[in-house]
């Protein structure tokens, strides 16, 4: 039940207990208990809303920044990752295999703000060796959801 429950609320965090109970064929109390457990265990970390900001009047610029760092003795990449993720404008930090170490997603109002974050805050961190900044021009798909795509049902209306 756990995996099916997670898959359902990952797609729709506003789904009600009643509906979950119907879809999973499990009693509401049991689902409420399971959800509480999942939160406690840190498996469910938040309930977010997927917003296509491009359609609003709010200006937002998102950048993906590749960061090369020197890992620190005894702490590996964790210490430097923490230094970076503590900034609220940093939306995500991933440790990555391959040509660089950390992938940082940054969200700001303007290009200038991103530039200054990179040059003033990020590059000046002691263990950061280099950075490469990529700006996102258009989001086609995010969190498994395709933006701006509503397809009609092309099937024959009745078929045997």
């Amino acid at each position: 039940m756990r995996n099916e429950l997670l898959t359902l609320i990952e797609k729709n965090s506003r789904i009600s207990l009643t509906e979950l109970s119907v879809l999973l064929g499990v009693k509401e109390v049991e689902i409420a208990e399971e959800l509480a457990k999942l939160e406690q265990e840190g498996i469910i970390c938040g309930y977010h809303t997927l917003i296509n900001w491009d359609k609003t009047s709010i200006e937002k610029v998102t950048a993906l920044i590749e960061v090369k760092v020197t890992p620190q003795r005894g702490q590996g990449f964790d210490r430097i990752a923490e230094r970076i993720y503590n900034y609220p404008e940093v939306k995500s930090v991933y440790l990555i295999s391959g040509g660089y170490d950390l992938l940082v997603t940054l969200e700001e109002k303007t290009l200038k703000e991103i530039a200054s974050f990179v040059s003033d805050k990020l590059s000046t961190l002691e263990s950061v060796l280099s950075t490469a900044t990529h700006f996102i021009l258009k989001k086609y798909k995010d969190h498994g959801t395709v933006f701006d795509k509503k397809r009609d049902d092309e099937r024959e209306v009745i078929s045997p």
Partner: protein
Amino acid sequence: MTKPLSKMVEEIKPSGIRKFFDLVSEMKDAISLGVGEPDFDTPWHIRDEGIFALEKGKTFYTSNAGLKELREEISNYLNRRLELNYNPNKEILVTVGGSEAIDVGLRALINPEDEVIIPQPSYVSYEPCAILAGAKPVIINLKAENEFRLTADELKNVITDKTKILILPYPNNPTGAVMERSNLEEIANIIIENDIYVMSDEIYAELTYKDKHVSIASLEGMKERTILINGFSKAYAMTGWRLGYACAPENIIKQMTKIHQFAIMCAPTTSQYAAIEALKKGDDDVKEMRTAYNQRRRFLMNAFKEMGLDCFEPFGAFYVFPCIKEFGMTSEEFATRFLEEEKVAVVPGNAFGNSGEGFVRISYAYSLDNLKTAIGRLKNFVNRLRELKP
């Protein structure tokens, strides 16, 4: 021209669904719950293999029986999922959908006057295909009180000296009924005792929601007398690719291949390459779709319970088959009025045989959002009918 057309064909009634189709098509903003195909797109990696096959110029005929690699994968798959052992070189024929396999299988077996037993409600093409093959169809009217399973007694009652084949359509379209192992064992005993063949249409084998599907061919003494029909349409959401297959003893496949060779040549090459990918890497996709169908099934069963609408719980395919007898209308009247008054299309149960009268088929190959809207309207409709009733 004045010379008459084929009398046999002219006497075949057009599908009962056709009439209703025309009615629904005229209504622009109707919600349909009437389709018999998945709402999912074919998983991308499968489509991608089809595209790749085209890019590489794999655009020629394949061997009549189908690509060897595909037959080998079918054999592996049947072994992995249904505990069946079929020799890919001699016992598998790749066809244009399961429908071709039904047609060719019947034609390969039937002599004039042979009787074909067809349990109904069931898929619309068994009866006409049997007639076109020269057989006499013998209908068993399945009962709601048996949850539309075929019982040993029902079968015994219709067997004669002329009985040649039993068509076994489970998991069932339109009722969603499944046959459990114990049910199949009873049927198998009678089949063996009377020395008849079985055509087991297992196109919905992957879509069961309680126990794993059991193929009658996997029971002792049954493989040698079974034509197993399966395909890619329902399990992998590949209806438009038109690809299915038949598995049977070598002597039957040999005769079927002859008909297939002269009438069809081979199944579409692009589809065959895509299907190899489906069988190799599609298990997870099937699982994901099955989970989604099951959630919708639970949603519908719960909604019917709340409405007080009589419906047995079906554990297969993607249909529910509620009873509408309480409203004192025929299935067609109910479906027509529901369409006109609430703009939702369901299929009258009698389109699948006389024993479907008093029921309608509701497909859950639709998104939950769609189903919610449609069921909301069904609730309105049902409430209104009940209020009007004296």
